């Protein structure tokens, strides 16, 4: 699955991160429209079919390592995070991968990204893994800074790519 450019789930003052009306919970079918709306707002591109397939794979997944969580603020979905445990991918022992995290732009600076990430990390721990990875564009400074602020560092893998001609 491709990496998506994510909105900055900012790291705010600790007090704001503890807002009482915010719940992190597994996605429900009824949340999908809000998730699509957040993604469309952030990326400027609506990907309805893509999100349906993501929901089928992660929202309805019976796999204990797959997680699709949303941030629910008094009934409104304001962010989401998606990831899964992958076994021996790229020759690495099982680890958690975070491949999408988004927070609605006008809900940022309230610690929602941090809460989402901490929740998915807790799920990875319950699934028995002790390493988490992600990958994003090197010019995606905001989200890179967010992951760095959460303690993530460059890992032992180096992404490589090439253009296919013809």
């Amino acid at each position, binding site marked *: 699955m491709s990496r998506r450019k994510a909105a900055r789930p900012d790291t705010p003052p600790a007090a704001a991160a503890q807002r009482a009306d915010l719940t992190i919970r597994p996605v429900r079918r009824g949340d999908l429209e809000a998730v699509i709306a957040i993604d469309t707002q952030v990326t400027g591109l609506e990907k309805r079919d893509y999100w349906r397939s993501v929901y089928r794979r992660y929202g309805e997944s019976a796999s204990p390592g797959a997680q699709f969580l949303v941030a629910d603020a008094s009934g409104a979905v304001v962010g989401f995070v998606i990831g899964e445990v992958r076994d021996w991918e790229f020759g690495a022992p099982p680890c958690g991968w975070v491949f999408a995290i988004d927070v609605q732009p006008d809900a940022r600076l309230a610690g929602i990204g941090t809460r989402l990430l901490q929740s998915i990390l807790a799920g990875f721990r319950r699934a028995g893994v002790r390493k988490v990875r992600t990958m994003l564009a*090197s010019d995606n400074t905001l989200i890179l*800074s967010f*992951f*760095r*602020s959460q*303690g993530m560092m460059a890992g032992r893998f180096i992404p490589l790519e090439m253009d296919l001609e013809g």
Partner: protein
Amino acid sequence: MRLQQNSLLALYSLFEFAGDPTRHISAAEIAEKYQVSPHHLAKVLAELARAGIVQSVRGVGGGYRFAGNARRLTLLDVIARFEDVGSGPADRRERTPADRALNTVLTEIDEIAKATLKSITLATLLRLSAQKADGEPAPVAAAAEGRPQR
């Protein structure tokens, strides 16, 4: 990668200022702690003050204090004030195929270095310094506020 002396002095200073944003710290104190020339440091601090990253405080107990946002100020923001990070192929000779091939590799390294420096904020740097010996990261908020870590 090696940083030039001015960049290092700026980062040492900001590390001290942002570690305790309420405190006024004199240039002499920083110079003594890091064993650097006070005269050299004064020039670096003047540049940081011009940029609005630190503020000079006059009078008894004066010095400098942090005036930036540790969660937003990146290492690249600071270093780029004192040196050219990743000069790129424009500054490199490309007379031969070997030059061009080498420049491709060196540019790749430059871009990775820039992306790294641009993604690490002063708050993250403080957190890194506060990591316990066992490698467990310290809380971001506590590190940014200069509080003791756990």
